């Protein structure tokens, strides 16, 4: 996938904005105008964006990780943003893509949870229902040609069943035992798959955490829109819990040995 969120859903155009210095600079424009042009706002572009989310199945449930950065183009704009959020008693959602769209969806999900609670019908929305609802919202908005510019991972645990699934701005959905959005789908997912596939029922919480930490580290080394501050969420029979922010211990000593990487004289 194209890593730059501004390019999502668009044809490539290398001649324009080749450095990805989005958002697109707006210049004064005095040419002919469509009087009704602003009446209908259709497509947009992501402005403040979050990068990859990772998630895996393990013995006791689902574990998810995302860093705390919200970028403004290539600027690391907000460095204390929560991209993992609990929805109800059984579910955590991890968001990448546009952060304002994410917040809009959070408030929409809050409303939905309140609505469901007030009906007092003895049913609570589980991860499968929340994912289905979210996919309807996303698919509905893409069909209106007014997408919510995100990729989400929905993880949960209810009635002894683990749940992990994906939904994005096109309404595409799927499920697997190791998943990643954005850059993570290219860099971290192969590592996650080798570590997790076939061992979903064996991995302990400690092992799962170690796998995710390792992948977050690899992503921090290679994804220019990532941060070494991240959170981990677990969803088990005990319900969802989202950790405090933690730092990645990284080492840069290897750079010394590489010409053009560290400070060297030729």
């Amino acid at each position, binding site marked *: 996938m194209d890593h730059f969120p501004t390019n999502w859903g*668009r044809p490539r155009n290398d001649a324009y904005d080749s450095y990805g210095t989005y958002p*697109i600079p707006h*210049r004064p424009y005095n040419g002919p105008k469509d009087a009704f042009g602003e009446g209908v706002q259709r497509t947009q572009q992501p402005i403040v964006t979050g990068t990859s989310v990772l998630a895996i199945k393990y013995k006791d449930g689902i574990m998810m990780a995302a860093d705390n950065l919200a970028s403004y183009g290539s600027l690391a704009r907000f460095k204390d943003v929560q991209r993992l959020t609990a929805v109800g008693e059984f579910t955590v959602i991890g968001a990448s893509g546009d952060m304002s769209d994410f917040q809009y969806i959070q408030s929409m999900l809050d409303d939905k949870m309140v609505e469901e609670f007030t009906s007092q019908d003895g049913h609570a929305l589980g991860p499968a229902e929340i994912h289905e609802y979210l*996919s309807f919202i996303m698919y509905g908005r893409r069909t209106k040609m007014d997408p919510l510019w995100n990729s989400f991972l929905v993880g949960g645990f209810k009635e002894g069943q683990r749940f992990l699934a994906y939904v994005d701005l096109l309404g*595409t959905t799927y499920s697997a035992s190791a998943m990643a959005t954005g850059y993570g789908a*290219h860099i971290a997912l192969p590592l996650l798959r080798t570590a997790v596939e076939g061992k979903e029922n064996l991995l302990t919480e400690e092992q799962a955490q170690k796998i995710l930490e390792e992948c977050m580290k690899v992503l921090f080394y290679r994804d220019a829109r990532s941060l070494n501050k991240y959170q981990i969420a677990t969803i088990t029979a005990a319900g969802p819990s989202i950790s405090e922010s933690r730092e990645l211990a990284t080492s840069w000593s290897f750079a010394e040995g590489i010409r053009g990487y560290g400070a060297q004289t030729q």
Partner: protein
Amino acid sequence: MVAVPDMDSLVNPQQRQFNPYTENGGTILAIAGADFTVIAGDTRQSEGYSIQTRYAPKVFRLTDKAVLAVNGFAADGNMFVKKVKQRLEWYRHAHAKDMPLRAIARLIQTMLYARRFFPFYVYNILGGIEDDGTGAVYSFDPVGSYERETCRAAGAAQSLVQPFLDNQIYFKNQLAAPGMSHPTHLPLPDVLSIVIDSFTSATERHIEVGDGLEMYVVLAKGRGLGGMEAIGGVQELSERTEGERLFVVRRELKKD
């Protein structure tokens, strides 16, 4: 040389259109027998060079005698199946029976053509048992053109599989032995081996095909299992054994 955007493209409004479609790979295939139908699809879902998941079903049970395979843009496909299932449920409530296969086929055409100017980017293949007890395959294009056939492949490896089927199912370019004629319908075990061979071949030569294979088998009323006993890993999906019977057979495909 760095490509510098010209002033025109900066001053004038940028018309960058959101593309509401993508292509999720995979292949589907259906073959009708005299009194059975096989509807199959691989289970890989991909976007570009990335495999999103190794198990995303593309073949769905509609009724005990109708199975729908969808291929193309996965989000549209899932939504379309959901809407067809909903219409079939409404039909059941109104008429206290399952909709006949040829009626489902016409319903699908209507539903696809209703979106003529913003199509579901999906190739549909409907398979099952007709009211007269014959096996049937209906294939559709994304805007609803449809046709009843004996066999059809669609999706990423359509061009690899369809000519193979022409040869093995329709016996195209083959002469029957003197005084003999080609069978109009093949027995179930032969059909299943051809389906498996088609998918292993497609997996070998197409990167978007692989991981797993799901073959749905619909048997006409009172037909008996004839040919199913010898096959391993069969799961029955129909609840009643009196009417049409529905089975699913799963096989692994290469994952590279």
